[in-house]
């Protein structure tokens, strides 16, 4: 399990272990929040951790609303913090 994967969060270099979820890698890297809500502009991160609450949504390689707790990181992923609906509205 020593293989390290490299990816970016808003352009900044991050690392993850093979098989790690995006949420796991981000929290290991010190981030607790990566989404802001569309009405109150409040920060959100992991809540249920098992794909039920959709609070940990994030944009991966341009695709919005990926559940960070379930999706595995892949080499070279461009991960971006998400605002509101994730579609720039």
């Amino acid at each position, binding site marked *: 399990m020593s293989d390290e994967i490299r990816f970016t969060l808003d352009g900044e270099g991050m690392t993850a272990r093979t098989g790690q*979820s995006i949420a796991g890698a981000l929290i290991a890297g010190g981030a607790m929040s990566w989404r802001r809500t569309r009405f109150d502009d409040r920060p959100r991160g992991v*809540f249920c*951790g098992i794909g039920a*609450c*959709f609070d940990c949504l994030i944009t991966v390689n341009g695709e919005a609303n990926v559940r960070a707790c379930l999706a595995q990181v892949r080499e070279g992923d461009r991960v971006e913090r998400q605002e509101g609906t994730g579609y720039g509205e």
Partner: protein
Amino acid sequence: MASDCDVAVIGAGAAGVAASVVAARSGCRVTLIDVGDRPGGQYYRGADLSPSPRAGVDYPALAGDLDRLVAAHAVDYRPRTTAYALERAGQRLLVRTRGDDRHRQDVDIIGAGTVILATGAFDRPLPFPGWTLPGVMTGGGAQSLVKGQHVLPGRRIVVAGTGPFLLAVAATLLEHGAEVAAVVEANDPVVGSVRQLRGLTSGLGKAGDLGRFIAALARHRVPYLRRHRIVEALGEDRVTGVRIARVDADWHPIPGTERVLECDAVSVGFGFVAQLDLAAQLGARMIRGADGGLAVEVDDDQATSVPGLLAAGETTGIGGVEAARVEGLVAGATAAVLSDHASALTPSALERVRRQVARWRRFAAGLHATFPVRDGWVDSVREDSLVCRCEEVPVSRVREAVALGARDARTVKLLSRAGMGWCQGRMCAAAVDGLCGFDDIASLQGASYRPVSVPVPLGALAAEPVEG
């Protein structure tokens, strides 16, 4: 992109693994669909289990059997796959699936004579101001990070809510090097004794687990604060502490007992909620389980009110991993008979398993009686606390909906928007139910109806079912 089988099993936790193994060993063509990367569900999380010394029906033996059946193509195992819709096509049922969030376009339609729902449960949260702050998460969320990702959610963590699962979460956090500031338990379980508690909780995991949890708490001098509750989580952009209070027997905070615990993460949970989307789609009859939550009604064969639809485990009422496993065995045997195969479980073995189902269900009822959700949270929750996390709906707006005349859960949802967001009410339905005080199953079932259980690309929805 369409396939066919005798038995489609949805969910690869203890119930789904047990059901798949029995059905496949009986000669059925089985497709096993699961969101996870590996079998095991939320309890086992794909752990590498030491193989069981004897053949049998304990989980390690079943997991080993499943591996062999998958390798022999007797079970078509589909990990990282979500069953998002279930529909009837004549005598058969169709399961619509899609890939994970990075493969949403990978859709399929699986025809099956029998479907076994083993979709498990998620934590039941209750709202308090600040529960949406980053760092506040469910017990299952904390467990998934620590056990699944080997990442601690924080360095100093408060574990709160009710139930023996709090102790399991605290022990996991301690084992992985976190400091647990306190375990905040709203009920007062030590009315009897630790021994009684151990009897109650043995069914939630391997026997003796609870002794290990309690020993870990004692060794690390973690306070177990019974009859206490979080009244507010503090912090601006992430949680920095919680305000807790002593509560009376009905969970009303006692004035003058509030104090602040500093922490950088919080784990909360008040029991669990069964995952019932697919059962609701087919209109399966529901009941209130022993914990007051909605559950699918099943008979002694694990058959629901819908022909061809069986259910096992938490979907039939929160009962823990052992109840799930033995119900899965029964469901697998029923599915074999429905598919005109002789069951791999002999009549006497099946009889033994049925007795175990009854025993674990009795045990679950005892557990729920010890750790109920009490009404006091309803009239003590602050009006400005969000109840629906997705649509950012405060408690006050749910109360307004009731004041405007809403008399069922669906009308409350339409008036307040609570439950209309991404999670489709999974996180708030139990709380909204408590706030409104409706006591009508049909009303709750209306609110839990989700024609599509996860977001699906429009192109996928346009795919036509094939002729069965």
